[in-house]
């Protein structure tokens, strides 16, 4: 490819391949990974109790168990009380450790396969949900990122002590960027591939948005908002068009920046709010992964700035009232940190 362009001989010129590679590995602050670890590992615990919550029940009554491809490929044992209970305990323990950003890689490498298995069992009764892709991908990529240490990122897997506050670590890392990018791609793929499935479902035609699919869904999941909408099929068709067009255009969000990206994210979160109102389908495991787009690494600096401003103001008024000097010292330190 590069041989065809003899003019680009200068050293800093990057090839198209490198540009693609760089797109997959943007430099993102390690703090965003730390926040995602906390949020997503806690979310897994919620998920196990609120969404994919029948895994242990399937261990008690494995009669309806029909193993999915991955379970057959790895010859995973049939769910039993013993193995689903073990899975449950292991997941709770290591999710809590990972959420605290202690030994995050070790915890992560345990949670990823354990939760994948948990969901595999949960979906092995003939009904598969499509809201877990981004979450499962996130769990597999998070442990590839080494946490920051005093001497850069050495990433000791077994380290319990946290040398630097992971939530404030502004060290930008390509490894972190790759993990974030993978989660972002999975979130977007969930929508884009839904549109592809709709084309396929209609025999590779654009028949879906004009069909009575939402009417069908509402009749089968009766719900006050939905039942009211049943009287207005044109509204349901409009929603179907908006949905499929939005899903098709979703990949654009990967290249949007700042406010425009936020707008794209809000569109899809609105889409989920509507789905929840009409069909009671919330897709929260995907929604939570939208946080991979959010600049979470700015939370701590923002908070420190606020605190230092407030302390400064307080220090000034305290000094006026004859308070000791050390508070002013505190605020000066906080300000220096915030500026770092």
């Amino acid at each position: 490819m590069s041989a065809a362009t003899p003019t680009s001989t200068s050293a800093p010129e990057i090839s198209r391949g490198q540009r693609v590679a760089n797109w997959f590995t943007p430099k993102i602050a390690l703090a965003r990974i730390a926040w995602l670890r906390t949020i997503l590992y806690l979310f897994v615990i919620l998920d196990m109790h609120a969404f994919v919550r029948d895994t242990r029940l399937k261990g008690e009554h494995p009669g309806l168990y029909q193993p999915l491809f991955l379970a057959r490929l790895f010859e995973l044992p049939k769910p039993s009380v013993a193995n689903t209970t073990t899975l449950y305990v292991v997941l709770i323990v290591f999710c809590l450790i990972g959420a605290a950003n202690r030994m995050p890689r070790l915890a992560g490498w345990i949670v990823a396969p354990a939760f994948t298995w948990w969901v595999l069992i949960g979906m092995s009764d003939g009904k598969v949900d499509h809201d877990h892709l981004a979450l499962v991908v996130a769990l597999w990529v998070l442990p590839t990122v080494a946490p920051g240490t005093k001497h850069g990122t050495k990433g000791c897997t077994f380290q319990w002590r946290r040398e630097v506050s992971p939530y404030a670590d502004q060290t930008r890392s390509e490894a972190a960027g790759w993990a974030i990018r993978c989660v972002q791609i999975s979130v977007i793929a969930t929508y884009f591939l839904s549109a592809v499935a709709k084309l396929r479902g209609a025999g590779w035609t654009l028949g879906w948005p004009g069909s009575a699919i939402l009417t069908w869904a509402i009749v089968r999941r009766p719900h006050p908002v939905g039942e009211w909408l049943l009287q207005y099929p044109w509204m349901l068709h409009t929603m179907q068009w908006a949905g499929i067009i939005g899903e098709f255009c979703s990949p654009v969000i990967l290249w949007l920046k700042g406010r425009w990206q936020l707008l794209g994210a809000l569109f899809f979160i609105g889409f989920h709010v509507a789905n929840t109102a009409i069909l009671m389908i919330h897709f929260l495991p995907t929604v939570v992964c939208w946080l991979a787009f959010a600049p979470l690494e700015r939370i701590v600096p923002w908070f420190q700035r606020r605190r230092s401003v407030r302390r400064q103001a307080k220090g000034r008024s305290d000094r006026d009232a004859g308070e000791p000097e050390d508070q002013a010292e505190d605020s000066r330190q906080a300000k220096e940190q915030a500026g770092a």
Partner: protein
Amino acid sequence: MAGVVTKQQERTGDVRLGRIGKGVRVLVALAGIGLLINGSVRASDDAWPFGPMSQYAGMIADDASITYTRITARTDAGTTVDVPLNIEGAGVARAEIEARTGEIVKDPSLLQAVADGWARKHPDKPKYVKLELIRDTTTLVDGRVVGDPVPEVLATWRVRR
């Protein structure tokens, strides 16, 4: 995978990936995208998590008949109730009942598990004495719901004590 990554500090403090670490990551990402596309184009739900995102992706014609399967129960308190088909209710999901309708019609004794599940989970509530598997059919006319659903009893089971 992380083991082969060589990292070097940049003057700005950015942590960059080595050639191998970056190459492997890009390949893994591309392979994942490939698997997802393959799943959406050709595979079924069986390929989870790489299967098609087919929830609500079907086509429903404007004159379709929409069926909805439910179970009603006569209780020992003399009331008739809809059996809650979820984990907290009778311990079995509606999707599972719908997937096995044919088997239940052939062998209604499979409904015994529903009554047992309810009794186990709700020992203080009235027991089920008779169960009916019912299919409601709603017919669309020009894409609109016209009239009430038509119920049809598919199977009846007198609960064993």
